[in-house]
């Protein structure tokens, strides 16, 4: 079916509209949103299968030929990310059933989550640079509402800062698109790439490349532009935090990946050098902050920043190892960050505090929770059979292949900091004497754990069966390495 690739966008969109009509009927809201997200997930898995067999799928909306209308393009990279997004959204929504509370559910909570998924899936699938801006705005508008819904003081305060940063970066996005349009005269991404190749990237296009880096770096929180993230992600409740941590920054990373492999691959000496340096600084500063805090939410938040740095470093290497490592790590990191935020949410619900010094011995009362957390931490750090290993291995070997031994070593060392920062949480809160910490045993932890364990199983499967998944990753990397495939698929040449 030719319209298959629009399904992960249109199903959540229609669901969001339908959900608005009976905001107060919470049970119906839950059922509809869970069913539609399962449908989105199934559609995206079928899409992956389709791309695996038939190559890149494109859809010219309204049947206008490629550079003139909006084209949706689904290559293996976007399809994998869309499937991961749908899976994480489904698990976060199921988690929300038991944790988010009636007050929020009554105010269009599920509807807004669906709009967030529309924005994220759209941004992954679009083949038009201005359409990408629009999907970014769909995503950001929903994230503003999700951040502030509930209206506590901390949420109001952090929302103001978050919106201000994103309004600025959106204006910058419009400006950059304006500049790019004045140089190449087109908005279709494949056509832009073709025209840039024709003029062989003069200096003005390098300037535009750096502007794009600033725009997407603000969305994706790379080194000098990450300042807004720790505060903003601290404010919302756990399932929203999981959605933010897993999806929003990764859209920025995906955009960097797309623009730097499709548009600006002619003068890599300058742009990709900047990218590599910024990525390493991101990793270093994230590592310092991750071991500095005693607050579990903050620790996980700074682990997002470390992972962003690692992925961007893989992109900056621009060889097949680095790029496939970046793709591998991107999918792994989306899943595992969602797991960690959901687990942190459970721990805070049990103990009523996010400071890990205030409790100990949780493993006595909650053994399954403890071991799930332990596996998640090992997977995040990249212990061999688990999911973080292959991605980081490929990124490091890409770094060595590009002759950047220092960078690759920093990437490898950062794993140690990741492991230390979270293992410290595990040792302090789950080991030790159970006495003296306030533990609430009334929380229905079993129900909350179901979606988390489902995600952990996927993460373990992703690591153990990496041989099988590698086929898909290679297909995704092929398009990144050879933009001609993408251009040919879109423009039919």
């Amino acid at each position, binding site marked *: 079916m030719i319209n298959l690739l629009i399904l992960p966008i249109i199903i959540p969109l229609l669901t969001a509209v339908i959900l608005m009509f009976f905001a107060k009927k919470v049970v119906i809201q839950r059922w509809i949103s869970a069913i539609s997200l399962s449908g989105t997930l199934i559609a995206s898995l079928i899409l992956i299968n389709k791309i695996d067999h038939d190559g890149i799928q494109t859809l010219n909306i309204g049947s206008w030929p490629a550079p003139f209308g909006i084209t949706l393009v689904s290559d293996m990279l976007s399809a994998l990310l869309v499937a991961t997004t749908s899976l994480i959204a489904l698990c976060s929504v199921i988690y929300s059933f038991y944790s988010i509370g009636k007050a929020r559910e009554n105010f269009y909570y599920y509807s807004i989550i669906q709009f967030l998924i529309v924005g994220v899936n759209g941004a992954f699938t679009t083949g038009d640079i201005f359409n990408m801006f629009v999907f970014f705005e769909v995503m950001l508008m929903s994230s503003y509402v999700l951040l502030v819904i509930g209206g506590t003081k901390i949420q109001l*305060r952090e929302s103001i800062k978050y919106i201000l940063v994103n309004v600025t970066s959106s204006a910058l996005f419009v400006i950059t*698109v304006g*500049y790019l349009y004045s140089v190449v005269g087109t908005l279709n991404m494949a056509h832009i790439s073709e025209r840039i190749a024709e003029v062989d990237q003069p200096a003005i296009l390098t300037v535009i490349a750096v502007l794009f880096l600033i725009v997407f770096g603000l969305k994706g929180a790379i080194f000098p532009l990450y300042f807004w993230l720790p505060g903003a992600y601290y404010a919302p409740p756990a399932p929203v935090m999981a959605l933010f941590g897993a999806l929003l920054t990764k859209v920025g990373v995906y955009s960097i990946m797309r623009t730097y492999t499709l548009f600006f691959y002619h003068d890599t000496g300058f742009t990709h050098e900047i990218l590599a340096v910024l990525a390493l600084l991101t990793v270093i500063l994230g590592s310092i902050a991750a071991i500095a805090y005693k607050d579990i939410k903050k620790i996980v938040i700074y682990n997002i920043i470390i992972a962003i740095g690692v992925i961007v470093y893989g992109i900056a290497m621009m060889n097949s190892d680095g790029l496939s490592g970046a793709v591998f790590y991107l999918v792994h990191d989306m899943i595992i960050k969602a797991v960690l935020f959901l687990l942190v949410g459970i721990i805070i619900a049990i103990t009523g505090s996010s400071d890990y010094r205030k409790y100990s011995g949780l493993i006595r009362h909650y053994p399954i929770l403890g071991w799930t957390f332990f596996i998640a931490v090992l997977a995040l750090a990249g212990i061999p059979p688990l999911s973080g290993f292959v991605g980081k291995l490929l990124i490091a070997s890409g770094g060595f292949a590009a002759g950047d031994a220092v960078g690759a070593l920093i990437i490898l060392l950062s794993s140690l900091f990741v492991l230390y920062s979270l293992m410290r949480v595990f040792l302090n809160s789950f080991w030790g004497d159970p006495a003296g910490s306030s533990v609430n045993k009334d929380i229905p932890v079993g129900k909350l754990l179901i979606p988390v364990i489902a995600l952990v199983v996927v993460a373990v499967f992703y690591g153990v069966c990496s041989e099988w998944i590698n086929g898909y990753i290679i297909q995704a990397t092929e398009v990144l390495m050879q933009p001609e495939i993408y251009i040919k698929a879109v423009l039919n040449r």
Partner: protein
Amino acid sequence: MEILMSILIGLLFASAVYLMLSKSLLRIIIGTGLLSHGAHLLLLTMAGLKRGTVPLLGEEATNYTDPIPQALILTAIVISFGVTAFFLVLAYRAYQELGTDNIDEMRGSKNND
């Protein structure tokens, strides 16, 4: 003409940045308004301000102005309108709840969460 517009847009950006770096929340929101105004004018300018008639086929002219940036600007205007409306209401709520419009006082502390 493009030079003149560029200078004007530069002035708009300068004022926007100045306002957004101030302490009062309302001045910041006025700054975002100026910023999006500058961005929209930039889109219009960057596509070229060549002479031609309005993009209506009924005019039957030989030259038309480029219709794409006008569509882009229209989209960007409604988006920034939506965001600004949300931001203004948020600022109002924040003023009611936190009792200040000074961005410096909006810090997290033990008693103020």
